[in-house]
């Protein structure tokens, strides 16, 4: 049974696309077949973060409008063959998405993959609405910062009213992914703690991704962080979150960087 998951946040720049790529890759690494779908029509970036920007021929809009079929538009990842990308269009705008078209594409994807991960655009406009519309569960990416928490609260309200599941009278599962978390600053009292955010938003926790330079390094290379540096702290945090999505019970920790003896001994090296 395919699961449709939306990665959303309301606020921009909190790590939706990074998290979509990392969670998608981590789930695919567990053997699941995964497609990550970019709903940010006009401002696509998931292709770039996944390192597939030069392989885009057809996109979501082409499939929605019937100008191409899924086989033509899906891009299979070169590193993990159970991972695919359905890119957004860069030249069209959000009005090119239609409710019927999106529903048809999501249903078709359900027949092919275990997980359909929809990367929502920022904001609460049309694109965000279509990204969440058919979701079974939502991952709400939030930074421990006031504006991000506020926008997440708005998105939770929309998930509870605008999704298909909500309209059927069911409750959509909402999971918090707290990104850019710095345990030292939180302990010092200069950053909202995990429990503060959980209490304010009253949803359950999927994972805590520590602030880390590895995230930028991974996007520089066009690789999900779980692939570019699997032993790094954020990669381990995303891998844990992916296993929780699969129903495993894993103790909630904030992974930290392991000190690499040889790394320190021989000095710094560019990311391989």
């Amino acid at each position, binding site marked *: 049974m395919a699961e449709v998951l939306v990665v959303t946040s309301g606020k921009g720049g909190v790590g939706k696309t990074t998290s979509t790529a990392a969670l998608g890759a981590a789930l695919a690494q567990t053997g699941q077949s995964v497609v990550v779908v970019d709903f940010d029509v006009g401002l696509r970036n998931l292709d770039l973060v996944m390192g597939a920007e030069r392989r885009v021929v057809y996109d979501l809009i082409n499939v929605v409008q019937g100008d191409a079929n899924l086989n033509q538009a899906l891009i299979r990842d070169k590193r993990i063959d159970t991972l695919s990308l359905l890119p957004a269009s860069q030249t069209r705008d959000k009005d090119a998405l239609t409710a019927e078209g999106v529903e048809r594409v999501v249903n078709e994807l359900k027949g092919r993959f275990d997980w359909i991960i929809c990367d929502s655009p920022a904001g609460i406009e049309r694109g965000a609405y279509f990204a969440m519309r058919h979701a079974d569960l939502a991952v709400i990416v939030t930074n421990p*910062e*006031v504006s991000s*928490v*506020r926008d997440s*609260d*708005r998105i939770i*309200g*929309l998930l*509870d*009213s*605008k999704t298909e599941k*909500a309209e059927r*009278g069911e*409750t959509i599962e909402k999971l918090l992914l707290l990104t850019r978390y710095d345990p030292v600053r*939180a302990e*010092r*009292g*200069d*950053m*909202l*703690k995990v429990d*503060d955010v959980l209490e*304010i938003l009253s949803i359950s926790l999927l994972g805590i991704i520590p602030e880390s330079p590895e995230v930028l390094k991974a996007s520089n290379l066009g690789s999900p962080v779980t692939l570019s540096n699997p032993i790094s702290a954020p990669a381990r945090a995303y891998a844990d979150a992916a296993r929780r999505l699969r129903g495993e019970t894993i103790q909630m920790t904030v992974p930290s960087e392991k000190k690499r003896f040889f790394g320190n001994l021989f000095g710094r090296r560019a990311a391989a």
Partner: protein
Amino acid sequence: MSVLRFFTRRSTAPAARERLQLLLAHERAVFGRADLVALLQDEILAVIAKHVAIDPEKVRVKLDRQDSWATLEVDIEIRSPATGPLKMAG
């Protein structure tokens, strides 16, 4: 930074937390927690069903919001005593 300021440095996270809690309490009331009516319906039903036999299908909860006031209309049809126990508390 003076020595005094160093020792009296106050953490800022509690302020963030309080501001958010206040703001969101207000915003949820304005935008409406989208599932509020459903939530109210479930909880009101649960309380009444403890004491009176009711048909969940014959319950209507309506929330009407205006600028300065809101009304909550709850319409519940209670089964006749012949078909179910009717015992009102309070």
